[in-house]
């Protein structure tokens, strides 16, 4: 968290597609990230990793979706990133590769936290990380529940927070905040609407 990039508007990294409207805000002012670790990853994965960057002193890399599980395995076994902090997703419905899938890993020995990001299209099934980190189980289930991203090879790919027969994935941007599964609410709660 030491060196914070105070230089504004300097877009070193590729942004998230052009926003509509008269004056789109400048894209994320990320700066390149270079270190011993990025060199190792570069040697090992080459073109599979699209970008190494840092924003507000936090490092992340963007990789091709099929490489992610391999990168996690490498980070855990050879770089000491033994703690999977979180898996989550962000929806950009206007983009061809609709979702950002974000993995956050931490290394106790290095005291370092990095993010692995990947872009996936609707319907793409990323590989599960449960083989690398058993703790990925519930986290991936939550991503499935909220975004409808199915993880290939997951041992128990079910919803986790919402009822199992619920329709729709609420954290998608096209799911309005007042929307709900009318049928489910009617059948299970016996009311016309929860609103």
């Amino acid at each position, binding site marked *: *968290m030491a060196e*914070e990039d*105070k230089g*504004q508007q300097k877009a070193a990294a590729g*942004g*998230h597609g052009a*926003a509509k409207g008269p004056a*789109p*805000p*400048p*894209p*994320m*002012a*990320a700066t390149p990230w270079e270190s011993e670790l990025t060199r190792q990853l570069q040697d090992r994965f080459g073109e599979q990793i699209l970008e190494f960057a840092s*924003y*507000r002193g*936090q490092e992340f890399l963007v990789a091709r979706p099929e490489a992610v599980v391999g990168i996690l395995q490498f980070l855990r076994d050879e770089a000491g990133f*033994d*703690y*999977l*902090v*979180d898996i*989550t997703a*962000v*929806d950009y419905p206007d983009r061809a590769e609709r979702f950002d899938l*974000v993995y*956050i890993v931490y290394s*106790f020995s290095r*005291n370092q*936290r990095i*993010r692995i990001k990947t872009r996936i299209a609707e319907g793409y099934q990323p590989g599960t990380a449960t083989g690398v*980190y*058993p*703790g990925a*189980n*519930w*986290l991936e289930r939550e991503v499935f529940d*909220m975004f409808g991203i199915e993880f290939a090879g997951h041992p128990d790919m079910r*919803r*986790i*927070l*919402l*009822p199992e027969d619920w329709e729709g994935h*609420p*954290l998608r941007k096209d*799911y309005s*905040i007042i929307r709900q599964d009318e049928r489910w609410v009617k059948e299970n709660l016996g009311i016309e609407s929860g609103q």
Partner: protein
Amino acid sequence: MPDSTFLDATELVLNMGPQHPSTHGVLRVILKLDGEKVIGAECVIGYLHRGVEKIAENRTYQMFAPYVDRMDYVAAVSNGLGYCLAVEKLLDVEAPPKAQAVRVILTEFNRIASHLLWLGTHALDIGAITPVFYTFREREEILNIFEKYCGARLTTHAFRIGGLQYEIYEDFERDVKRVCDLLLPKFDEYEELLTENRIWKARLVNVGILRAEDCKAYGVTGPLLRAAGVKWDLRKAQPYSGYEKYDFEIPTRENGDTYDRYIVRMQEMRQSVRIIRQAVEGIPEGPIMAKVPKVMKPPVGEVYVSIEAPKGELGYYVVSDGSTQPYRVRVRPPSFVNLQALDKMARGALVADVVAIIGTIDIVLGEVDR
């Protein structure tokens, strides 16, 4: 009687909860049993799901702040601190020193309050009725300070993005010191009741063991990780809000069982008092609010900021698209992640031990389900 009259009943499925006092809210556990031995525990969660992350996308940054208090509602101050720090990082501002000191005092008090509530209810689960009255009595003193400071006792919304809304009240320092002096001997009192108590030890020692490597594999943090011998605490590893200025220890134990987690939490409360005493000694003068715009529009970007909440690593992953509303807020809840290890801990234990194990994880369902 011929054998054929019996079903093949070596496995028994037992449903526990969601309306069960020892599940601390609406947690449902489906236990698979062999006799009284647990051979599998599946959690069914989501009964308290309110879509907090979705709400965040439909509110401005400031408007969402009170919502985070409703996740881990027994440690609302910690939730608020994590969220404020995340948005401050996104805005690239830092709270002024005075605000940081007050934040530390209130957050540590909240850690004690959360641990006290845990201790009382955990003891109640085990069958000891007395401690809950004592711990609630002392927790009251802490909640009174919250109430005097910001008017609320539980869902406090004590902090604002950029610092604090309220100046500390006139006798704040005196109250804080008085409660610190009051708490320490009370901790000894609880320990006299429990630590060497034969029943307490019989119910907790070697129950629900989770080794360090399993903690890491499942992402388990907080007192559970420290009880397994890993000396890791985000307040030391990656200090925030000025924690690097204070002198304190990270209590650890070796065995990683329910009893060790009890000891770790007891020691943590003492360390929290130690931190509060240092922080209250020199609350710096000066402003309580950093320069933040009234209409908050953080530049396009994303940050992940986490703090050591009473239950473990509480993280916020916030994505800004340059507008007044966050594009995405992801909460990384310690309770949710820690609860996942229940199956691992419960296997091989007895049904009665499951109650102790659920208690020892210290979950709050508001945070598990969000």
